[in-house]
Each structure stands twice: as structure tokens, then as C-alpha cells.
């Protein structure tokens, strides 16, 4: 069972995630957008959206550090377990609270503002459900697991993180995950569900974060497509030269 849950399911989701993005990028560039609803409503969005997104950036950063940096490395540079714990819980909590507050505002807005709600697709709703569950479970793990230590102390850096790295290295060790508390297990599973949905939702906009803007010239020049009329030449009939 644990092999199925913590090896098979994650790999399937990861495959869908990668293949889905390739497919979307190839066949649906036009649909690749944030689908912003700011035009409809701005007052709540102005508070909720930056809160959520900046909180989320913090959360993602925290996960990268927590999951990918082995404990031995931080030990080696002399960061004690306690120091790490305080920093991680403090930072995680701040980012988490921002995210949750932002999310609550955004979901409230989406539900109560007529035009925004009618522009919400079924896919959006499913995605919101997954996203909300992942975030709530994550917060639960932080608060109940790491601060109040309900159900005993658990050092995820010796369990979940190691499993995650083994998973990325294609040598998955399901046992590590099977021994983790239920909260962590669920968080990971629902997160993988979200990854599988990802390429088919508006979440794809994460991968178009426009960092290139910082360095490109202001005005972009491009040459006219080398074709007359509305059709590109059919395959096998491309012009020479």
C-alpha cells in the first residue's frame, strides 16, 4: 500500500505534470494566461492577491530549503537543529499566515463578486479545492506538528525530506513516508494531486514569471511573418531560401 501511495502515485502525478506542460505549451499557448479578473473587481484583489502571492513565494522558498537541503549540510556549516527549527517555523508561519489570509480573501471575493464567480470554471473550482486543502494541511503540520507537537515530535528533515530526495533521484524509499505522521502524508499526497492538475489549470502562469523583463530592451522589434495571407504553407511546401 505505501509503495502504491508514495511511489506509484507520485510518479504518475509527476509524469502528468511534465507531459501536461509540454502538451499545453505545444498546443495551447493561447490559453496560457493568468486569466486575471482585476477588470471586474479591484478592491479586494488589491489586498488579497499580493498577500497570497508573496506568501506563496515564501512558502515555496521554504519548501525548497526544507526538502532539498539535507540536514547534514546545515549541520556541517554549524547551524544547530534548534536554530534551524526556529528559523523554519518562524519564516514558515509568517509566509503561511500571509498565504492563508490572502487565500481566504481571494476565495471570498471569487464567491461573492458576481462577475468573478461567473468567470470561474469548473477546473478553477477543483484547483481551488486542492490548493486550499494542501495549504490548510501544510499549516496544520506547521502549527500542530512543529509548534504544539501534537502526536509527538517529528523531524521531517529525517523523514519526508529524505523520501522526497530519494524520489527525485528515482530511488524512492516508501518506508520513510509510511512512518511519517498522517498530516504529512496527506499533505504530500494532495500536493501531488495538485501537481497532476497543474498543467490543465490557470496555475501554468507560474511558469511564465517574467524575469526576462529585467534585462530585455524596452521596445521589442520583430519581423513580419514571412507569409502572405492567413495560412502558413502546408507541411512539405515550405519555401526555399
Amino acid at each position, binding site marked *: 500500500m505505501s509503495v502504491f501511495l508514495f511511489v506509484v502515485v507520485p510518479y504518475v502525478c509527476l509524469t502528468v505534470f511534465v507531459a501536461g506542460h509540454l502538451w499545453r505549451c505545444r498546443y495551447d499557448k493561447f490559453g496560457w494566461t493568468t486569466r486575471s479578473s*482585476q477588470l471586474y473587481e479591484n478592491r479586494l484583489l488589491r489586498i488579497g492577491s499580493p498577500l497570497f502571492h508573496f506568501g506563496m513565494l515564501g512558502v515555496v522558498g521554504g519548501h525548497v530549503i526544507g526538502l532539498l537541503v539535507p540536514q547534514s549540510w546545515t549541520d556541517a556549516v554549524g547551524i544547530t537543529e534548534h536554530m534551524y527549527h526556529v528559523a523554519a517555523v518562524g519564516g514558515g508561519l509568517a509566509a503561511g499566515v500571509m498565504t492563508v489570509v490572502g487565500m481566504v480573501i481571494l476565495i471570498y471575493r471569487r464567491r461573492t463578486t458576481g*462577475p468573478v464567480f461567473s468567470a470561474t470554471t469548473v477546473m478553477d473550482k477543483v484547483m481551488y479545492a486542492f490548493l486550499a486543502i494542501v495549504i490548510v494541511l501544510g499549516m496544520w503540520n506547521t502549527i500542530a506538528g512543529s509548534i504544539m507537537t501534537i502526536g509527538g515530535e517529528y523531524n521531517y528533515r529525517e523523514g519526508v525530506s529524505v523520501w522526497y530526495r530519494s524520489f527525485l533521484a528515482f530511488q524512492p524509499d516508501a518506508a520513510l513516508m509510511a512512518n511519517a505522521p498522517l498530516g504529512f502524508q496527506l499533505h504530500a499526497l494532495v500536493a501531488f494531486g495538485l501537481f497532476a492538475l497543474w498543467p490543465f489549470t490557470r496555475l501554468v502562469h507560474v511558469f511564465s514569471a517574467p524575469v526576462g523583463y529585467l534585462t530585455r530592451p524596452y521596445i521589442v522589434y520583430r519581423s513580419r511573418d514571412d507569409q502572405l*495571407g492567413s495560412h502558413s504553407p502546408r507541411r512539405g511546401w515550405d519555401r526555399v531560401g
Partner: protein
Amino acid sequence: MRVMAQMAMVMNLDKCIGCHTCSVTCKQAWTNRSGTEYIWFNNVETRPGLGYPRTYEDQEKWQGGWELNKRGRMKLKAGGRFRKLMTIFSNPKLPSIGEYYEPWTYDYATLTDAPAQEHSPVARPKSLISGKNMKIEWSANWDDDLGGSTANTHRDPMLKKIADKVKFEFEQTFMFYLPRICEHCLNPSCAASCPSGAIYKREEDGIVLVDQDACRGWRMCVSGCPYKKIYFNHRTGKAEKCTFCFPRIEVGLPTVCSETCVGRLRYIGLMLYDADKVLAAASTTDEHGLYEAQRDVFLDPFDPEVIREAEKAGIARDWIDAAQRSPIYALINTFKVALPLHPEYRTMPMVWYIPPLSPVVEVVAETGEDAEDKGNLFAAIDALRIPIEYLAELFTAGDVVPVDAVLKKLAAMRSYMRDINMGREPDASIPAAVGMTEEEMYDMYRLLAIAKYEERYVIPPAHAEQAHSLEELATECAVSEYGGGQNDLFGEGSGAPTPIAVENFQMLQDRQTSDSLAGPDGKKGRVNLLNWDGKGSPSGIFPPKGDDS
């Protein structure tokens, strides 16, 4: 010198009757889709008025366009690149749908479905955004013809600038129409604001376009454009803008708005400009100098040196010819009667306007004086400071000198031509008073008053075949596809390619994608009304059902 060509437009405001034909035909052609209901690539505003979207010209509020920083360098008014990325999650300067207007339809069905009742049923307005019943309170031209002026006009940002000098008195008002499309700027701040780099300026003809596949819906362009001529399609989540009807321009046809303009007041042609000088010109410190600075960027297409450089830059000979015959060049540089709209935004706009003399003429006519007499008109131009200052706020960043000069030229042309039309001896002192020769004045009259289609629209077709056209003779299959370059001597593919227009677009597409030469295979698509007995529908007149997937 880096020569580039730019497709540009000039509109002669004296002739605009505010009929909105241009807006409607443009909408039919480009924005009659869901998500674009509120979008008018072409709109016509009554001035004084708030414009569309409301008070878009108030850049203190909307922060569109460029400004100079303390060191005199250009920067986006809404903040630089880093600032843009930090505010990407919620654009602080995006007009809400209310600033445009909430689009609506009517539930016409009640008119026919309602049960018998005492009062006739009414079709209630339904919002196209929320689907709910709504109260109509604003639209794209709500203040048309100064409608509701007493309530609205004082909010006109351009009027505010001169309002401290003269209180706006409604009874003495003047009025004219201002049709607007995207300016296809030389220094577009929309493109500069786009984080994804999806907005680009075409190298060949300078048309500014949004790459729909690269746009990610960040909406920074909407705030960045000071003319608010980029719109957010709320269904697709992508930015859309006026395309200068590039599929028509590429085959030598004028834009839809120009083609259908009732007043025949639009001119389209090429301008050659020196791309190396654009930035410096846009950074001119004195706002009043921007108009002249932009004129300096344009190159004289008759100058042999310019021609040489243009050829080096790959501009084809027929394009240089077209630039020489360009009505835009004549109006901007030869006769100097066209002015840019809001040069102070520093985007170097390329749709210019001939300011209207008619408010002045009307005032003179009302006094009972001769409204075609040069002396009267000149005196009126000098006396009517409010209209002139208002025009200057629109076209020269508030500098009345160029506006004065243009209006006097138009006035001079009026009285000079009257003498000719009355069969009197033309008075050479009239053109001389505005620094023109008689011949120039007559040429200007010709261009402004009676120019034919081919003179108003000088549009060289695009060169898709450039460079490899010669190879094509040897390498392409003899049965060339439509538009493929070489034409056959006989049969379907012979003759010059049919230009693509809205009217024949489907037909051409069908022809291009069908496998046979002379039309669809079999009977499909052929209609013979001769053997139709009048019952049912004749075969072939409608496309077969369920066949289109």
C-alpha cells in the same frame, strides 16, 4: 542613420461629422466577440469631453506613457522594471470596467415570449459581464455631442489645465469630434511595459501588435499606454489592440475605419524615420519642443542620401516611391498642418491630426461677418483663446504657436480658394501671409479637399517574397498556392493575387485549402438555383451539417 518605415495616419478633424461609422465597422471586423464587448479599437469622442475610458488623459491619475527622471533620462511614468514586477500581482493603475462601461444586451426574448398583459413588455438591459439586470449609466460615447455636459465636461482633464484662466461657459462652447485609434507609436510605452515581451513593433511597417500566444495577461500594457488603446479581453485573459488592419495593409488596402469613413478624412501612407534619433527626440526636455523634435526624426524621402540608406536597410524601391508620394509626409512635413496627439506622453505617436478650423468659422459666421474672409478669420483666431488653447493642450502640449500657424494656413486656404471658385483673380498675398506659395496652397487644397482614393491611401503591399523571389521561379511548383508568389499564365492561378479583404476572406481561405483548382470537389459548395423548385433549401447553399469538425 538607421532608416525604418512606418505606416501612419492623418485625420482631418474639420471633416469629421461624428457619425461613428468608423467605430462600428471596426467593431464588426475585429471586436464582435465575447470578451471584447466593451472594446473599441476605434472610438470617436466629442471634445470637450471625458473621452473613453473616462478621463484617460489624466496621467497624474493613470500614470501612462513616459516621463523624464531627474537626470533627464526616459522612464516609464508608472515606474521601472523592478517596480512593475513587484506590483505584478495586482496592477495598481488598471482602469476598472466602470471607467470604460459595463457592456450590456437586452433580453429581447421577453418581447415575444411575454404572456398577454395590460402593458406592453419591455426588454430589460442585461449586463454582459454578470448576466444580471443592470441600470445603464455610462457607455463608450455617453457624452456624445456634449450630452450631459454640465455634469461632465468640467471633468475633462484638458479643460482643467486651462480652466484657471477662463471659466468654461457652456453657452459659448465649441465642439468637435476626435476619432482615435492606436497611435502605433515610435516609442511605444505599451511594449515597454509588457513583462512578457509579447507586444512588438514590426520592423517592416512599424505596426504595433500583441502576440496572442506570448501574452500572459499581466495587464501592464493597459496601464502603460497613455492613450488607453490596449484592452484586456476578459474572456481570453489576453491583451488586444488595434492592428492597423495589418492583413489589409499587407495587400495594399486601407484600414477598415479609413475605408468606411463617411467624411473621407483619413489619410494613410508611409513615413521614413531615423530609428537612432527616436530616443533622443522623445527625451526632449521642453515639452513644447516635442512636436518639432518628432518632425526632426522623420526623413526626407527625396534626399538621395536617405534613399541610399533606406535601400541599404532593405526597404524595397516601391516602398521608397510610396514614401515619396505619401500624403502623410505632405501633411506633416511639407504643408505642416498635421499635429501629433499628446506629444507630451513622449511615445512619439504616429496618428496625427489636422486641428479643426470649424469652431472658429462658426463663431465668425454667428457674428454675421464674412466667415471666409482672411482678415476676419485671422482676427478670430487671435481672439478665440479658449478654443485655441484647448487645441494646443491636445496637440502640442499646450504650445499655441503651432496651432495658430496651422489654423491660419487653413483659414488662408479658405479665403484663397474662395476667390478662385468665384472666378476672381487669386490673391497671392494670402498664401504669402502664411509663408506659402500659391502653388503650394493649391496643392494643399487638392490634398485636403478633393484627393481621390489613391491619393489618400498610398499603401505599398508587403514583400513576403523579398530576397528569395528570384529563386522561387526555379524552385517552386508551377501550380503555386494563392499568394505564393508566382502566378500562372492560365486558369485559376493566373493574374494578380486577389487581395484579402473581409468580404472575400472565406472564399479565399476555401480556395486555398481545397485540393482542386476550380472549386470544391463534387457538388459540395456549388449552388444551382435553376433546378431548384422553391421547396426546402437548394442543395449546396448551406454547408453540410456536422461536416466541419
